């Protein structure tokens, strides 16, 4: 619980600081073009790392469950590309995952 409270406190402070900086250091930020570049590149990179991280949470990476997850993630990606509906992709992906985990 202590870790969660600490995380909430510091995450709140960092988030607020990032949003506050432009109001007090406008010139400096505008001159730092590298930040502009990083903020265009980092989100995709971070999301990729997070997909790997959240996929790898299970203690046994090579299992039937891993195969089910890969099938469902492929399906989610294809559906998202085709229909662009996050809700639909999530519902179908999750339903198939639950079905595979229960039946097989």
């Amino acid at each position, binding site marked *: 619980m202590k870790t969660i409270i600490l995380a909430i406190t510091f995450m709140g402070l960092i988030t607020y600081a990032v949003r506050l900086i432009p109001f007090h250091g406008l010139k400096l930020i505008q001159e730092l073009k590298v930040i502009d*570049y990083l903020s265009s590149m980092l989100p995709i990179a971070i999301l990729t790392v997070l997909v790997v991280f959240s996929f790898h949470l299970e203690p046994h990476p090579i299992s039937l469950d891993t195969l089910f997850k890969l099938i469902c993630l492929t399906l989610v990606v294809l559906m998202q590309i085709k229909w662009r509906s996050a809700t639909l992709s999530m519902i179908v992906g999750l339903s198939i995952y639950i079905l595979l*985990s229960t039946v097989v």
Partner: protein
Amino acid sequence: MPQKNQFKRALHATKPVIFCYIPLGIAFGMLFDTMLGHWYLAPLMSLFVFAGAAQFISIPMIANHQALSTILLMTLMVNLRHLFYGISFVKKYQYPWYQQMYMIFGLTDESFSILSAEDKPHDAKFCFHVTWISHAYWIFGTIIGALAGLYTNVAIGTLKFTLCMLFTIMLVESMRESKRYMPFYTALIITTIMMLLSPAYYLILSLLVISMIFIGKYFFIGKKSQREKL
């Protein structure tokens, strides 16, 4: 425009946010409660942090006992884009200091997109209403989700996978909108290498190495190509 009309206008403008913040808030609340326990801390996080992506990301990191510094570095990197939201707003709006402080706090992707998309001349009260209404939706969704997590028995493995699917969808959409694929391939290669080299610290190491690669690319390749163009 009278204050009541500004409130109504803000309520109307934030309608799309309901479809985004409430389902996501519910998902966040459920995940938080199932993976971390202490359901009441989930709305507290939504109240004090108000950064959807960073909040979602922090759940598995806290659950996996990642160092606080790693969680904070991730928060900083994920929220880096907010630096530019403030820049486009700083000169436009003048509020009383207490409203200004809250407006800065509530400058999220959604509130930024609503305030940027409005054609009509901006009013400080309208912007303030948009911010607090959006924040209220987010907290409301989180409370519903946290309570649902408390009273329903959802398998933790399934919820963990939901988070993975959510990140995947966000990744697909980010790549589609930006048309940038290089960060994806770079991150995938670096994360795989780091996972093999250091399974315990691959998350933080991957983030640091990827950032260094991009900074290096900007200063060495980016500037060189700019000079060549001249």
